[in-house]
């Protein structure tokens, strides 16, 4: 009872310097225990520096391969990761595999299988573009390690407002 009353009374007082000092320590605590990843701000800036208009941001989901023990061992050069991107107008499933030292390959599958131009924009500055085939399949070969962002645009539709873009993901 007393504790409750004391708590209510403490809670009703204005913030003071002790509170400011406590919050500064909470801040230092989380800066130590769970800091914002070093390059996150840079990667966000890159992902926003699109010079194109887009209609939708696809949601990215990493397939839980870790949990299933399926993911390859990076040291043996067989790392594979599967991502899905979902937007209102399309769903894409993408697998990134390591095919050699410093060499990656990205295989994707789009649904519905309509002709889309698929653009891969790498943080390194490289740009790649392919067109998905009539089954909705597309691939990029000989990619370097790094972060990339995909965008999908219907073939023959030059209205930029119909593009779907993905967040940046690691290749």
């Amino acid at each position, binding site marked *: 009872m007393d504790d409750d009353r*004391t708590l209510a009374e403490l*809670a009703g007082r*204005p913030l003071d310097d002790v509170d400011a000092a406590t919050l500064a320590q909470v801040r230092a605590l989380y800066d*130590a225990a*769970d800091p914002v990843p070093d390059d996150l701000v840079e*990667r966000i800036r890159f992902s926003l520096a699109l010079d194109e208009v887009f209609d939708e941001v696809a949601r990215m989901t990493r397939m839980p391969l870790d949990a299933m023990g399926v993911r390859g061992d990076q040291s043996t050069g067989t790392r594979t990761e599967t991502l899905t991107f979902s937007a209102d107008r399309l769903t894409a499933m993408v697998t990134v595999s390591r095919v050699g030292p410093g060499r990656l390959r990205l295989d994707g599958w789009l649904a519905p299988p309509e002709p889309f131009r698929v653009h891969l924009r790498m943080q390194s500055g490289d740009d790649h573009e392919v067109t998905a085939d009539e089954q909705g399949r597309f691939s990029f070969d000989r990619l370097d390690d790094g972060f990339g962002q995909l965008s999908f645009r219907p073939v023959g539709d030059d209205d930029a407002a119909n593009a779907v873009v993905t967040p*940046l993901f690691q290749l």
Partner: protein
Amino acid sequence: MIGTRPEGGTLVHQAARAFTAFRDGDRAALDELVALLTPLLWHTVRGQGVDPVAAEDVVQTIWMRLLHSRDSIRDPQTVVKWLLTAARREAWRVSRRARTELVRTAALFGQEGDELAALPVRHDELPEEVVLRDSRQRRLWEHVQGLPDRCRELMRVIAFADRPDYALIADSLGMPVGSIGPTRGRCLAKLRQVLASDPQWEGSES
């Protein structure tokens, strides 16, 4: 951090100014906005129990949605609220899905899904490799972890903001009015109480 920043104005004011400049065509102002508010978004999302890899994806996705929706935010003073609300909602969606997957995976291996679904309150994970600076910081960690979930979430985000913005941020995180600012509120009062009654904390007052 007390009151305002050296550059003038609180975090919310600075964000509003940067957002306005960006909408008026100043591209660099968007970069500034990202640097200003990403810590707040990170701690909002991680505070909801989203793992670090997924948290990066959520924070980035929220920024891309802001880029897309910039014209629908009429009052620049609301940009912080817009971002925090969106981050919290998306984090909730992602952690709920992660839990569903966990239960499904467990079922696959013959474990009782219900047991996992009924896991006790989540706590922030302390990565093993992290060695907190000193015993004082470890005490604080334990006391913060002892707070109710909602209080822990609030303290964690508030700690990265400026005092005049506390009430707006608490509101953006879905906390009731009066959770913090201008008065201390129950969460911070609780933390203050447990710290004051910890002889190890008192004794090590710096």
